[in-house]
């Protein structure tokens, strides 16, 4: 193997063989080291969360990947191919100019026009001092009721869009709530304060692109009514046929009221988990 070994003699055969072998071994080594190094670099440059999200998004069922423009009635049918990242979507401008169509139901859920909604069921509210407050939307609150425990990020820590905002547990289920926008945590609230996190956004909140990926206005109606349909199907008792009731409002504390339902799937679809 090496010239130091007893009786080793260099021949053309040795040169060819060993150079080929070492070239192959080097290629394999470089590949592995490269993958490891790139992984480390992704974590250092905060790209890790984005990559995880893209990968998770691809694992979501197709019904959970409807484009917002389909929900809003702007297009017939479209699956999002960009991990809900409307900020980088090349088709956004052509769809956004059309008006949202659809029937507005009274869903019995509070949502307001001064808030922007993330597909993972959190809202974002721009405050006057340039910060953004974040909290869970009513559908999420109605599902969970009062959580058994909440784990908040530390003050001053960074949260990434589609990464983890906070984590909750309820009835043995672990729920990870996705962050609707990236920024630094400057305030921590809770159920009593009416908001959960106050963040200093990384991007300029006055730039319309910053909040482009969040739903607002009539879009929220259509999205929530789809979500309620999904919940009705998923929470029905086992072995009953699916039915879609008209009217009715969402009761609160569903996880306590219906402990026998398949909460794993419901929570995964609601909070965009795999």
């Amino acid at each position: 193997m090496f010239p130091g070994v007893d009786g080793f003699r260099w021949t053309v055969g040795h040169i060819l063989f060993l150079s080929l072998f070492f070239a192959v071994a080097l290629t394999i080594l470089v590949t592995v080291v490269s993958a490891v190094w790139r992984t480390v670099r992704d974590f250092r440059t905060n790209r890790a969360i984005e990559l995880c999200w893209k990968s998770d998004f691809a694992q979501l069922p197709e019904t959970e990947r409807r484009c917002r423009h389909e929900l809003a009635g702007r297009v017939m049918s479209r699956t999002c191919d960009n991990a809900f990242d409307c900020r980088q979507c090349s088709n956004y401008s052509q769809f956004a100019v059309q008006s949202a169509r659809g029937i507005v139901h009274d869903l019995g859920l509070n949502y307001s026009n001064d808030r922007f909604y993330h597909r993972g069921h959190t809202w974002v509210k721009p405050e006057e001092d340039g910060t953004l407050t974040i909290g869970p939307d009513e559908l999420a609150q109605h599902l969970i009721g009062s959580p058994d425990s909440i784990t908040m990020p530390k003050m001053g820590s960074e949260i990434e869009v589609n990464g983890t905002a906070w984590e909750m547990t309820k009835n043995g289920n672990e729920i990870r709530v996705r962050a609707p926008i990236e920024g630094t945590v400057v305030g921590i609230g809770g159920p009593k304060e009416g908001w959960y996190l106050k963040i200093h956004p990384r991007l300029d909140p006055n730039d319309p692109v910053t909040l482009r990926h969040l739903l607002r206005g009539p879009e929220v109606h259509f999205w929530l009514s789809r979500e309620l349909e999904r919940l009705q199907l998923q929470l029905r008792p086992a072995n009953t046929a699916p039915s879609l009731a008209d009217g009715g409002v969402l009761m609160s504390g569903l996880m306590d009221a219906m402990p026998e339902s398949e909460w794993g799937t419901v929570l995964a679809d609601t909070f965009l988990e795999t």
Partner: protein
Amino acid sequence: MASTALADSRWIARGEERTSLRQFLVWLAPWVVVFALGVYAAGLCLYFGLNQTNMDNRFAFGLWIFLDLGVIALGAGAFFTGFLVYILKRAELQPILNTAVVVGFICYSGAVGILMIDVGQPLRAWFTFWHPNTHSMLTEVTFCISCYLLVLCLEYIPILLRNRQLRKLPSFLVFEHQLHKLVPVLAGVGTLLSFFHQGSLGGLYGVLRGRPFAFRQGFLIWPSTFFLFILSAIATGPSFLMLVTATVEKVTGRRLVPPDLFRRLGFISGVLLGIYVAAKSIDTLIWLNFTSPSVGFAPWQYYSYKPFGLPILFAEIVVFGLLPAFLLTYRRSAQRRGLLLSAAALACAGVLLNRFVLTVQTLALPTLAFDEFLHYTPSWQEVASFGGVLGYGVIVYSLSYRYLPLFAQPKGGNTHVSGS
């Protein structure tokens, strides 16, 4: 809904249906027994020595070497599919890629495991790396198979990391993403290594000037068996993948790949098999008429011993070569699933017969004028050890099928799906 009721549903991808854990364990149980028996038999051989086998000074290679060569030929689908998908960009074979990697991993790790028992002094295995003999085909085999097994492990890791629970660790998921991006490099390296070791396995026999039954002319240092082995391996690799996938579909009761994938694999297999048959026929004619007589061995003497007469040669080239090549490529027969799979089975049997002829028949035949034709029957330890490899393979594949996205299709839309 069904998967959420399973005891281990946390580990199974969402939306995938699997049988109950209990049923799965019932399926695994006999294979675990077979595997355990294999481990015991192997342990006996390692502890007491190779006298536990029926190999002897005349049959220095036996069942294990024959099956090693066979299994490595059948596992060639791994590198060849990778080559077709990543290098030649044949995306229609994508659905079978993960299965190919797992099957390749099983075949090569199993073969290396058996080789460790087959040698008299396993702890000296590193000597080949420290004192390589660049003239020996076996050195080439050792180096290439070791490297290639490493490559297969590296290709298997991303599939493993896509398990539902394992992917929740961000470092695993990001590493999987980065490794997956480099898989084309690994596929290229794997193709190069496989080209050499599949060939060298053939070269093992083609260079034996002391065994004119196996000895062949060649190109530079490589005897014709070098190229014939490569051809037969890439011809039967896709067929073996077809058989594995069809079996999995039968056992699980669901359709896992687009139906015309079978026909495509069959066509590739059939064309390559046809080329192989042509090359082998030419090689056989040269050997019969020139190579063997030139060293004083009249070829008809090889076929004078029952039951290893001329019908074996005929069977190898025509029944298990030309016939499946035709059935796999001719449209009318390829369209019928039953015929297609039978042809694939014939092709795989053909490659096994070829390996058998070269490993076992070569040693049975006399060389000295006063030698006799010898017989050899493997001992139960040899059979059980190899049964252990089969059990190991079924267990690994079953676990991979249950917990990993082997056949996951891109879930609609034009998303980049890492790993489907």
